[in-house]
């Protein structure tokens, strides 16, 4: 007990209350007060007297300061993790439900409209493609018929030129006694040494596959072969034969396919003299 009394009288407890002790002294005092109730009682006495002394010396801070400090503490209070009300769940009635999801329906309709537009576009595209294909076919047909027409015009032109050409003589070959209905036209230009036969005006029976017609020129009483030709239903052009400069007459005989060296006289179809 003497030690405790000396400890109390050392004044360390007063310094402890005034916060004027080192950490080591502080630990020592705290050990003493937890061990000795008498020391604790003495400390309590000192504390109470100092508290009363402070209360005697109290100065009331301004009224405004109360609100300011309490507000700053309550602001901190809200931030404090240990603040129990912080853990309260959010009240359900604070939540406002989105009504009828208005913004969503706009996108739904917009999407539907886009889809409809897409389908229409695809349908229109398919239709356009079909039309384009048809137009292309028509264009090909037209261009081919145009080509044909051009060819025909060119051919007619050519034909017409022959008839217009003053150097050409048009010789009508008349049917022989056996073939009175037969006839044909031969155009002959001695200057150009050209011989043409008008296939369109060919009045001859159709030859079979084993035979061909052969055109002959009579030069000085001798027959000269000018080539073979066929009578077909669709031959319309002017066929150019082998060239010759001089001829007194032209004749056509039916010969075996490929022609003969000398004309078969009893197979003569038509004949005409150059005037």
């Amino acid at each position: 007990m003497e030690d405790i009394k000396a400890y109390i009288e050392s004044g360390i407890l007063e310094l402890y209350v005034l916060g004027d002790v080192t950490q080591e002294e502080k630990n020592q005092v705290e050990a003493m007060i937890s061990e000795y109730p008498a020391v604790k009682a003495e400390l309590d006495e000192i504390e109470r007297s100092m508290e009363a002394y402070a209360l005697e010396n109290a100065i009331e801070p301004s009224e405004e300061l109360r609100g300011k400090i309490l507000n700053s503490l309550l602001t901190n209070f809200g931030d404090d993790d240990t603040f129990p009300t912080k853990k309260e769940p959010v009240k359900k009635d604070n939540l406002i439900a989105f009504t009828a999801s208005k913004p969503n329906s706009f996108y739904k309709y917009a999407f539907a409209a886009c889809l409809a537009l897409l389908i229409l576009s695809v349908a229109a595209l398919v239709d356009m493609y079909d039309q384009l294909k048809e137009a292309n076919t028509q264009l090909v047909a037209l261009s081919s018929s145009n080509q044909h027409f051009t060819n025909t015009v060119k051919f007619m032109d050519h034909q017409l030129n022959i008839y217009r050409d003053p150097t050409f003589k048009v010789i009508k070959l008349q049917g022989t006694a056996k073939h009175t209905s037969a006839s044909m036209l031969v155009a002959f230009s001695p200057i150009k040494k050209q011989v043409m036969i008008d296939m369109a005006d060919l009045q001859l029976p159709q030859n079979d596959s084993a035979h061909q017609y052969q055109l002959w020129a009579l030069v000085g009483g001798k027959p000269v072969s000018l080539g073979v030709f066929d009578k077909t239903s669709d031959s319309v052009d002017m066929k150019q034969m082998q060239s010759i400069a001089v001829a007194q007459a032209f004749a056509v005989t039916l010969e075996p396919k490929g022609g003969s060296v000398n004309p078969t006289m009893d197979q003569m179809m038509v004949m005409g003299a150059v005037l």
Partner: protein
Amino acid sequence: MTKKGKISLTEEELVFSLRNREKIAIEALYDMYSSSLYGVISRIIIDTAAAEDVLQETFVKIWHSFSSYSTEKGRLFTWMVNIARNLAIDKLRSKDFKNQNKNQELENNVTFIDEQRNTVYNPELLGVKDLVQTLKPEQKSILELVYFKGYTHVEAADELGIPLGTIKTRLRMAILELRKHFN
């Protein structure tokens, strides 16, 4: 000291509700201790605005570090007043505060120094002066320095030019006088 409308709890109730972080504890704490704490702070820091700042800082610190307070180690007020005194001394020694004081007008310096040295009578302290009359002058000066000026007993020994042991004894005697007075 309880005025009408102020909240007052027993120390046990207050400690309990502070531990539970109850909102009412903050108001009770302020109502019960703000004037006592401000009394100490405003004797260390004369400037009212600065003293009020320190009072606010004190309450913020009490609230945030309350978990470090233990009833085993002493009374709540002892713990709080030490926080207040330390914050006030820190403020007094802070660079900003020193610079602010350097800007004091020359003619104001006389009253400022008088205030700092406590040679003027603060009307609010009249009752205290009566009380301190019951103390012997040497007890009074040591209590003034350590309790109101924030001196350590070592600094007080230097200031008063007396040995440390004597300082401690005088401090104890002064507090014993106070105990007699209050009991």
